[in-house]
């Protein structure tokens, strides 16, 4: 199976990541709508929200900090998956060294380098008021992703320059 170009593994991953990001966005919208319109039950200080068409439910502590954490984490996840889908969309083109992939890889680097750690510390201390430094593996994973995307950005930027020069060889 082809890795790049139309009808390739990149195209498959584009559809997968784009579908998941849209599904998560729909889920987030429904959840926020349900919280605003009181479409959930509260038992022992825990909320229980039915998810339509799936037969499952979402449960958690009925506190503003928990709901805010879920919302922020989902927004971060949606952005991450949307950017990944954009990267695979650029990879399914015939010419893989293009401006689109460089732009989206830069955004992915910023998301993992700046937004991710800020969100992590924001959720950990001011929102959830945790006293211990736990779940550090999430932060380590973000830094690893950031390093990979940073190097990939420069690889594709160099590739784009070489591609442009090759295109301008008459």
């Amino acid at each position, binding site marked *: 199976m082809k890795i790049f170009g139309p009808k390739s593994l990149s195209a498959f991953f584009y559809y997968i990541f784009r579908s998941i990001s849209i599904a998560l966005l729909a889920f987030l919208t429904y959840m926020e709508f349900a919280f605003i319109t009181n479409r959930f039950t509260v038992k022992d200080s825990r909320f229980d929200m039915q998810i339509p068409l799936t037969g499952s439910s979402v449960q958690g502590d009925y506190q503003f900090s928990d709901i805010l954490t879920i919302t922020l984490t989902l927004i971060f996840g949606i952005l991450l998956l949307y950017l990944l889908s954009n990267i695979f969309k650029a990879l399914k083109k015939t010419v893989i060294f293009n401006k689109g992939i460089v732009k989206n890889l830069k955004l992915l680097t910023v998301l993992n380098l700046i937004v991710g750690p800020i969100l992590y510390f924001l959720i950990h201390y001011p929102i959830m008021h945790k006293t211990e430094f736990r779940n550090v593996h999430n932060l380590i994973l973000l830094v690893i992703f950031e390093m990979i995307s940073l190097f990939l950005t420069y690889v594709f930027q160099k590739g784009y320059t070489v591609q*442009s*020069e090759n295109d*301008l*060889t*008459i």
Partner: protein
Amino acid sequence: MSIVVNLNTVLADRNLKSKELAEMIGITEANLSILKSGKAKAIRFSTLEAICKALDCQPADILSYEIE
């Protein structure tokens, strides 16, 4: 760039249009325009050979070096 493409002068001398030359040497008009405008990063020997053959000239008639 200090390499100047004098293709317009040679074309005018031969009373030829860019479109005709592009057809003769087998490249697109867009690429010929890039070459004439000096935006090209490099020129293949095969393209240079085709231009020289079509215009009955030497590479030096088309390309010249100018100190910036």
